[in-house]
């Protein structure tokens, strides 16, 4: 029974990381209809920058803030320089550009910071929390991670729905020509979308790196699961990304604990296949309006 509780809580905390990556992918998809394969790489680079700040200043929160800002800037810069020329071309071109970008970022990190493991601090204590003498199986840091991701998702959803910037972002993605006619600066909205995605990706990187240890390829496997979480939840729904992350995290934890860790990828595939066969656009995406 204790094991079930530990697996569930552990699954929630790791699922929140998948949700964070999924959120940034959803954001870019909603804003620019591009699948950003470099999302993990961007998060890795901003985390390295944060680590430099933390080791220079000794303050975790300074590094945290710098990482978020660096993510904002990096996302915007990438969109302006590298993605903008690819936006009116076949959509696969943009995916290949992001693949090239990922390879470049990983090489760049290796050149600047070296390929060895770096230890990234956690925001709060990692010792398990206890009720009385019973271990709960999560730590204060896990609670922080969950809270941060939920807050980001909530802010994002609220921003999309209730602010005029969010409305403009959605309009620019839905139909750029019509949005332009209505006075929306489509180019700026695209940059804003990527910048925000960079911010959330940076958040994910900082939250997950204590567990993965930081090295140029550290975000590769997290990205795959984050992408899967976004697909399960539906790429048009930020709430879906969070739900998808939670479902994936908990389910894979159960599989790992009760059936064996070598079945985890196969089970992930099975879960994805089941969800997509029932709802081909993810669990929470709006259903397609027309079918023949």
């Amino acid at each position, binding site marked *: 029974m204790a094991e079930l509780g530990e697996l569930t809580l552990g699954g929630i905390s790791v699922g929140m990381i998948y949700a964070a990556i999924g959120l940034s992918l959803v954001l870019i*998809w909603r804003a620019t209809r591009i*699948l950003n*394969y470099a999302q993990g790489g961007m998060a890795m680079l901003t985390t390295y920058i944060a680590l430099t700040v933390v080791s220079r200043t000794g303050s975790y929160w300074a590094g945290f803030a710098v990482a978020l800002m660096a993510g904002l800037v990096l996302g915007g810069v990438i969109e302006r320089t*590298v993605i903008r*020329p*690819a936006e009116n*071309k*076949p959509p*696969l*071109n943009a*995916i*290949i*550009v992001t*693949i*090239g*970008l*990922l*390879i*470049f*970022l*990983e*090489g*760049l*990190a*290796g*050149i600047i910071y*070296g*390929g060895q493991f770096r230890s990234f601090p956690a925001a709060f204590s990692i010792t398990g929390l206890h009720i009385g003498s019973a271990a709960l199986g999560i730590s204060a840091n896990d609670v922080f991670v969950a809270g941060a991701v939920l807050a980001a998702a909530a802010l994002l959803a609220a921003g999309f729905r209730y602010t005029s910037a969010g409305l403009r972002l959605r309009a620019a993605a839905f139909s750029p020509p019509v949005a332009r006619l209505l006075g929306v600066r489509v180019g700026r909205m695209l940059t804003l979308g990527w910048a925000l995605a960079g911010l959330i990706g940076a958040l994910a990187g900082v939250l997950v790196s204590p567990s993965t240890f930081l090295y*140029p390829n550290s975000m*590769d496997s997290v990205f*795959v699961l984050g*992408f*899967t979480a*976004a*697909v399960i939840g539906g*790429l048009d729904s930020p709430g879906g990304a969070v739900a998808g992350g939670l479902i994936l995290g908990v389910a894979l934890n159960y599989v790992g604990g009760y059936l064996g860790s*070598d*079945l985890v*990828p*196969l089970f*992930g*595939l099975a879960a*994805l*296949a089941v969800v*997509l*066969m029932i709802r*081909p*656009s*993810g669990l929470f995406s709006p259903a397609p309006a*027309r079918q*023949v």
Partner: protein
Amino acid sequence: MTLLRHLAAAAVLALLIVILSIKLSAFRDYQIAEIGCYVAAVAGLTMLVGLSGQISLGHGAFMAIGAYATGLMLLHLHWPLEVVLAASALAAALSGAVVGVAAARLRGPYLAGATLMLAVALPTLAIRYAGLFGGDQGLSVTINTPGFLGPTFPLTRWQAWLTCGCALITLVVLANLARSRVGRSWRATGDDEVAAALAGLNVARLRVLAFVVSAACAGLAGALLAVTTSIISPGAFTLTLSIALLTGAVLGGLGTLAGAVWGSLVLVLVPTYVTDVAASHGLSSSAGSNIPVAAYGVVLVVVMLVFPDGIQGAVRRFRQLASRVLTLRGTPRGRAPASEHQEEGST
């Protein structure tokens, strides 16, 4: 007529490869063999993505199926090589059918996500059932040069001939398929699914067929890779391979078979070239070994931005420019000749 034209083209290429494989060193022969493997896989993928509009990030998994089928058959059944290669392609085709059916309703990034997970999860079967598949260490296979070539025929040259021969057969088959009714139907479904369905095409069946054909090509490529590298292990079929195949297809020119050749050339030759350049500058430290990685990424981005239609697109535009210059015909810039859209040839 089309078939004859394609066969003639294949014969010319085959002759070229034979000459190259004799003139170049053994290591270059090995690289030619690698290129042949990739051409088979990328050609199938470019048909799937470019014609029928279905993105697949999981073709490495089909290559793995073909490779493991080859390994198991060579180790346990001792069939002749041609039969083994064909059977491996068939095995991959069957799995392509399964995946195609499962993915028939998926579009865009959802299909991408599903195939991505396939690429990640399938090789783990080899570790789970290590008794059959050899686990992490994999299966070791060896082939020998056939007797009729003589005892001193270099193995690398035979491997080059074998893989390129199979690749050429694949290209001819795909070229004919693309020009046939099936190919036109694929293009129709890739263009506008709803219109195609309204026109009476069975969209689902066509999509599955595209998966089957492209998976067969990837399975053949995996089988060829197995006999070329002599090892079949899960470490060779990571997600990186699937991504590389898609990269090669798009970089070379999506939907074109010449693009498959360009893309394969880039995949095999550029990384070694970049590493050689880095090594000749004396960069052998750990940080220096990342420079070829970063450079390769830059190459991908730049080529994609400068040549949005891929390398074949650039070649085509260059030839148009050249022919316009040579015939002194002044077609205003920016307007492609209308006849282009109706021409159907392909390579």
